[in-house]
């Protein structure tokens, strides 16, 4: 059943949490690099400043796509936390992501154009694994409903260890962390021209930044689903996974897109075949 209250809570609280996570991320990253690092609230200052700037555009449609991007990302996350259907959540996520790509295409600029194509490659790389994660959860819990999965007493992680690894692998792509920050990166340690967001500036860039906060919270919620049987372990696992992503981010250089697509597909294929087949033969699949 849809739980609207949780959806509204997500809409209101997620940007605060997401912004804080981004701030902590930057602080830890700085420490890993031997710097002091900015205040934890720095992401909020940055976005605040973006909104004070004058909006410059290459053409008016860009802002439209940025607005669609944030609306559908909020929609995705709200649907997830309001315990909708997991597959529908994934499809809504794809729709949101496509708007970011379209915004980059619309600018008719070489840099954002390449960024858009690369963003599509990224989507192509992670999409199978994300769908198969939802399918795996259905096999494990007999439901596609988020609250059913979250409230299950089955230790999903023990049934889906392979799929969990595969999901963590593509999570790096989704969080735009090195080595898979192919289309645009969050830190300035990869590039000066920022791929898919090259032609965005001022308030519309601020919107994209906030969208990313929403997305981060949503994705961490997804990770939590593997540990729904015990909330304490769940929260701990989410924190550990995010710290791991920061570590990976800071210890790896960007790879070529070929490696990204090949490796994530190979991993998705292997872990899902092995894991789903094992579930099927051990537990007789879905009754």
């Amino acid at each position, binding site marked *: 059943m849809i739980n609207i209250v949780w959806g509204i809570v997500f809409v209101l609280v997620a940007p605060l949490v997401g912004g804080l996570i981004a701030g902590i991320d930057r602080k830890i990253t700085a420490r890993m690099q031997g710097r002091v690092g900015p205040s934890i609230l720095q992401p909020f200052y940055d976005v605040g400043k973006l909104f004070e700037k004058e909006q410059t555009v290459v053409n008016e449609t860009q802002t439209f796509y940025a607005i669609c991007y944030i609306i559908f990302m909020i929609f995705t996350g709200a649907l997830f936390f309001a315990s909708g259907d997991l597959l529908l959540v994934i499809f809504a996520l794809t729709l949101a992501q496509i708007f970011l790509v379209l915004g980059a295409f619309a600018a008719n600029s070489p840099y954002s*154009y390449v960024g858009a194509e690369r963003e599509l490659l990224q989507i192509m790389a992670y999409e*199978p694994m994300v769908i198969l994660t939802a399918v795996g959860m259905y096999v494990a819990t007999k439901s596609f409903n988020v609250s059913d999965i979250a409230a299950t007493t089955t230790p999903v992680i023990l049934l889906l260890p392979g799929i969990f690894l595969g999901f963590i692998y593509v999570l790096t792509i989704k969080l735009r962390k090195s080595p898979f920050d192919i289309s645009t990166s969050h830190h300035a340690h990869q590039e000066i021209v920022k791929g898919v967001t090259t032609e965005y500036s001022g308030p519309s860039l601020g919107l994209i930044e906030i969208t990313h906060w929403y997305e981060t919270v949503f994705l961490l919620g997804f990770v939590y689903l593997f540990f729904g049987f015990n909330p304490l372990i769940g929260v701990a696992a989410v924190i550990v996974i995010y710290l791991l992503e920061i570590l990976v981010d800071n210890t790896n250089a960007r790879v070529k897109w070929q490696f990204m697509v090949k490796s994530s597909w190979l991993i*998705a294929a292997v872990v899902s075949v092995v894991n789903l087949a094992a579930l099927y033969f051990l537990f007789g699949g879905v009754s």
Partner: protein
Amino acid sequence: MQLAQLLLFLILFPLITAVFMFFAKKDMERAWIVKLSALVIGIVSVYLLISTYDKGALLVSAIPSEPVTLIMFIIEMLIAVFILYLGIVHKKYIVVALILVQSVMMLYFELVYAHSVEVSSNLFIDEFSNIMALIIGIIGSLICVYSLGYMKFFHEHHPEMPDKRTTFFFVMFVFIAAMFGLVFSNNILWVYFFWEVTTLCSFLLIGYTKTEEATNNAFNALWMNLLGGVAFAGAIIYLAMFGNGVMGLDTLLASGKVIALIPAALIGFAGLTKAAQLPFSSWLVGAMVAPTPVSALLHSSTMVKAGVYILVRLAPIFQATFTGYVLAMIGALTFLIASGIAVSQSNAKRVLAYSTIANLGLVVACAGIGTYEAIWAAILLIVFHAISKSLLFLSVGTVEHRIKSREIDDMNGLIVRMPKIAAMMVIGIAGMFLAPFGMLISKWAAIKAFIDVPYGFVFVIILAFGSAITLFFWAKWMGKIITVTSDSKNIEGEVDHSEWTALTSLAGLSLITTLVFPLLSTKLLEPFLMANYGHVAQLSQDNIIIMILMLLLLVIMPLSILIPQRKHKHVSPYMGGRTTTTDMRFSGSLGVQKKTVLSNYYLHEYFGEAKLRPAGIWLCSALICIMFAATALRGVIL
């Protein structure tokens, strides 16, 4: 009107129109007849739905089998002689051989068994046939209307080609008549007859331009479909020999797997050829040489849909058999491989062709699985694919006439140059792969259907990869269209009235069907599933509401353009600090002015046709052999 008369009307009326097409030499006359007939066909197919609504499957026994079947046989033989003649003239001996084999088989059947076969009800109608009739009656006739404008333009700009529009429209309407016949026939001999007529029609339409390429591709399509026809004839002879007089679809479905599986596998093979599944995909890709409305017709409402129609009809027989699983695997692999090839294609029509093959593969996979959930997904796929694909083909046709190119890269900035058509194309593309539009609902249904059957996870994995690839090639095409180029002018001009009617109707249809699809599901699909499987599949109320919410959001968002807002400061795109003119020319090294050209990624290295197609052909051919071997073995054991 009585049901029998109604069904006969839908089969015969397009035929009469077809004959009239021969006499209407003037554009005006032709336009009027086509538009009126299209209107009549559309209205009658809707009326058919209303008059049979909520009555389940109705058999029609009023039409005498004996004389009609004999007339059909005679026409079949005439067609065979015609094809034989063409085959010899063009030195296509494979066609000659196949048509000879097929004719001998049918002659043998006619002489030895025909008198002993008795089918009580030759025609029938149920919810699935009703849906097919709506697709044929509405989309098929819209395409005919569109052709009026397109073919006029086509011959004005290709004066070197003989203007044979009379034949063109004649064949188009015969095609529609044959399709109606196919979906209303219960007698398998009748199904076979209409099946052969569609083969002939597609052959004639593909070869319309009479260029060497067109003729070759037409014969390519012909031999593949004749091969399917031979298998179909084989099924008929098998039924006559071992079937205890079973010759109706209803009795075949009721006869149990022991009798039905072998003929179903044979007819299923015929369905694979007609639905252009690997290894037979090349005929549909080759059919692109024909004028665009022909492609639209072949891909959306006729021909390939006949192939999947028969497979979905026979799905209860395939359910939970090894034959069904292999069939489903052929479909699933076709989906994966054809989607992959589509990534590497830069020609818009070829992308559409491979995407059709891929989506039909998904339908075949659902039909092979054959559970009620899978069939629910399959029928939804057929409906939504027909709408979006015809819209896309017709838009590409109109664009092609303006920009003189079918290349996707040449469609850069279409939203500026032809805003209306570009909007149609965006709706069509969104309909093919984005939530909350139809094709995505269907894929979603397919995932749920696959995961609930034994070994279904294999199919789910293939589907997950296939749909990620699908997303890639559609999104990059959409991106090309919506790119805003600063230097382009609006060259849309006056789009032909008939073309415009068809385009807007189809765009409207794709939005409306997405909105009313819960109705479509509860009023038509669920009764059909209940009658045939004893179960119903549906989406939960919550999900439907969420989907409608998404659709409304998507529809409302573009309206935000109407809200007056202050003008933003415009800058030119970042070009690495080089001086750039407004039309994106920059000075390269040595001071030469260069134009910025942006091209899509095609990833030939990974998704090239030369690489994937042979792999697909071998894999799927092997699977077909396995399917027949296993089915025959089962037949021997049982």
